[in-house]
């Protein structure tokens, strides 16, 4: 298993060369200090009235010391964050071939819908009679997710995919304990995303690894050998993290169920099969869906996400709270572990879930409809296979045969070039692309995992193919120096991550006052 992640290159400073400016800016690439370094006391970007004098009722707990926040005007703040944004790459800028992330276009209609006052300006604890439309939206989204997955139940409160994993594992644990059959192990393929074992461990389970076979799929015989009565569940990603469909999924489900265990499905790769395959028909018991992957809610530089889970009839009673129930056209919230929800694992998040992401996801789903969503999966798989077919002689595919929505390569094509997967990715940055996912999954050496998604045009893919082929040729021609020095054209070049980890500086601190001049 490759854990090397590419050794951090020892930094060898080069001369900055010509192109030096007085300002430190480089054309439109504008440098920007921290807000704390632009502070001037007395400046403020918000006009607020000063309240008339009154007797404080803070119980003597007034904040005495200065907080230390800098004062800036609105023009300065707008310029600050505008400049910062210009140092970023986004899906709006160009292709993000990140395997496992599904970086598809983020429709702006979704943003407009989420900002309707009827959705954005309502409090979760308003009387339900005043938020029937919000509850209706949640109920509608739940309906769409159930139809698309074929599962009878859904819980919308988990805040992100990993949170959904945790919720799903908790329902499994609750179900086993309810039948007096507490078990201690969960099986996880070695190709799994790190959140899988982390979520299992967070729920108190020991994690055991299942190897992949030579075709990159779960080794059914190895799985059956590990299946004893202490196994609570297996966590399977399908399509898996190598971008391949698990063809023996139904057999795996049967084996798991025969052993009295449950099948957790990681739905991160749902984009490959949405509208074409229903996970229920594969025998799953519970699955999380990443609304920020398949259903286009924006990645926002790292969040927020949303990770609803769909559940089988066996696990439905244990679903986390709250629930939205429809009765005769009216909607109500079930918020307590009592009565109809007495067996629920309980609450995992304050309030009702990531409503802002629900609105965006439903807007996306309605825009595509059943026919459009089916086309999404088709085009996602087509685009990935087009890349695979066009790059398979230039790079080294990890497995034979077609892929699903993402194509996996290993670093075999870089053998003896002195160029690592990391170096290759950094050179790609200079060409205007965000690199593909690197060094994941761990089952392949120096992995490069490429997921174009369905929102890339053929022209965009052709441009990417041209660049990747040229870089592969350049590496094989022996020009390792080009790769080691990359990137050169970005706001910052390679950064010293070793120093950042050895002597962490995690915040700005006011410099110590200078000594008075002699």
């Amino acid at each position, binding site marked *: 298993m490759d*854990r*090397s*992640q*590419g*050794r*951090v290159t020892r930094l060898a400073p080069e001369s900055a060369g010509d192109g030096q400016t007085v300002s430190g800016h480089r054309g439109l690439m504008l440098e920007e200090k921290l807000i704390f370094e632009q502070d001037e006391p007395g400046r403020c970007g918000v006009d607020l009235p000063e309240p008339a004098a009154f007797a404080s009722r803070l119980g003597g707990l007034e904040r005495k010391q200065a907080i230390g926040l800098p004062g800036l005007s609105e023009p300065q703040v707008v310029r600050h964050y505008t400049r910062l944004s210009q140092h970023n790459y986004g899906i709006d800028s160009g292709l993000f071939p990140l395997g496992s992330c599904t970086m598809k276009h983020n429709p702006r209609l979704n943003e407009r819908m989420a900002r309707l006052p009827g959705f954005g300006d309502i409090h979760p604890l308003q009387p339900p009679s005043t938020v029937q439309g919000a509850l209706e939206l949640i109920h509608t989204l739940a309906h769409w997710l159930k139809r698309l997955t074929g599962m009878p139940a859904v819980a919308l409160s988990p805040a992100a995919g990993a949170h959904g994993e945790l919720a799903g594992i908790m329902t499994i644990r609750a179900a086993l304990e309810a039948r007096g059959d507490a078990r201690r192990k969960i099986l996880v393929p070695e190709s799994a995303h790190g959140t899988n074992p982390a979520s299992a461990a967070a729920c108190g389970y020991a994690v055991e690894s299942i190897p992949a076979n030579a075709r990159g799929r779960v080794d059914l015989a190895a799985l059956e050998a590990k299946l004893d009565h202490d196994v609570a569940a297996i966590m399977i990603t399908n399509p898996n993290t190598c971008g391949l469909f698990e063809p023996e999924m139904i057999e795996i489900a049967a084996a798991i169920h025969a052993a009295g265990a449950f099948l957790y499905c990681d739905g991160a790769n749902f984009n490959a099969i949405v509208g074409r395959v229903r996970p229920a028909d594969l025998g799953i018991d519970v699955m999380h869906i990443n609304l920020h992957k398949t259903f286009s809610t924006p990645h926002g530089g790292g969040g927020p996400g949303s990770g609803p889970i769909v559940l089988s009839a066996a696990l439905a009673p244990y679903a986390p709270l709250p629930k939205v129930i429809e009765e005769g056209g009216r909607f109500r919230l079930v918020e307590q572990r009592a009565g109809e929800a007495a067996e629920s694992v309980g609450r995992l998040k304050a309030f009702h879930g990531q409503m802002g992401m629900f609105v965006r996801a439903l807007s996306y789903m309605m825009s595509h409809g059943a026919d459009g969503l089916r086309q999404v999966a088709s085009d996602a798989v087509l685009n990935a296979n087009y890349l695979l077919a066009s790059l398979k002689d230039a790079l080294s595919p990890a497995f034979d045969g077609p892929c699903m929505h993402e194509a996996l390569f290993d670093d075999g094509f870089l053998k003896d070039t002195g160029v690592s997967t990391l170096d290759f990715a950094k050179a790609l940055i200079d060409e205007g692309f965000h690199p593909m996912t690197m*060094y994941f999954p761990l089952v392949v050496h120096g992995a490069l995992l490429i997921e174009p998604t369905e929102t890339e045009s053929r022209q965009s893919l052709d441009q990417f193919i041209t660049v990747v082929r040229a870089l592969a040729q350049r590496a094989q021609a022996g020009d390792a120096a080009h790769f080691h020095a990359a990137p050169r054209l970005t706001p910052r070049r390679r950064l010293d*991550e*070793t120093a*950042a*980890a*050895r002597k962490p500086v995690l915040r700005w601190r006011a410099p110590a006052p200078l000594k008075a001049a002699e």
Partner: protein
Amino acid sequence: MSELKFSKDHEWVRVDGDVATVGITDYAQTQLGDVVYVELPAVGKQVEQDKEAAIVESVKAASEVYAPLSGEVIAINNELADAPGIVNEAPTEDGWFFKLRIKDAKQLDSLMDEAAYTAYVEGLA
């Protein structure tokens, strides 16, 4: 006697009487990359052969360091807190991790000598 003995998990041991000094090998530090942090056992802790005794971290990985012998930890290398890079620069000298009082000298027989370890590492390539 201060020749080094080696475990298959790339730890080295230097024995002096009933005290063993433990660290990771040059091969291990090369594989790991720049060491950024070392989590050492507490002095007084009982460690068991082949069980986790310490953790060594690089930027992108955290590796368990297993005790090559059983015994009680009697000293830890406090230099590593401020200068973890010593593990890369001098893995078998200043980059030592901890010292232990050997519980069972017979366990030394299960370790490799330098020649055997060198052959073992070559076989891994």
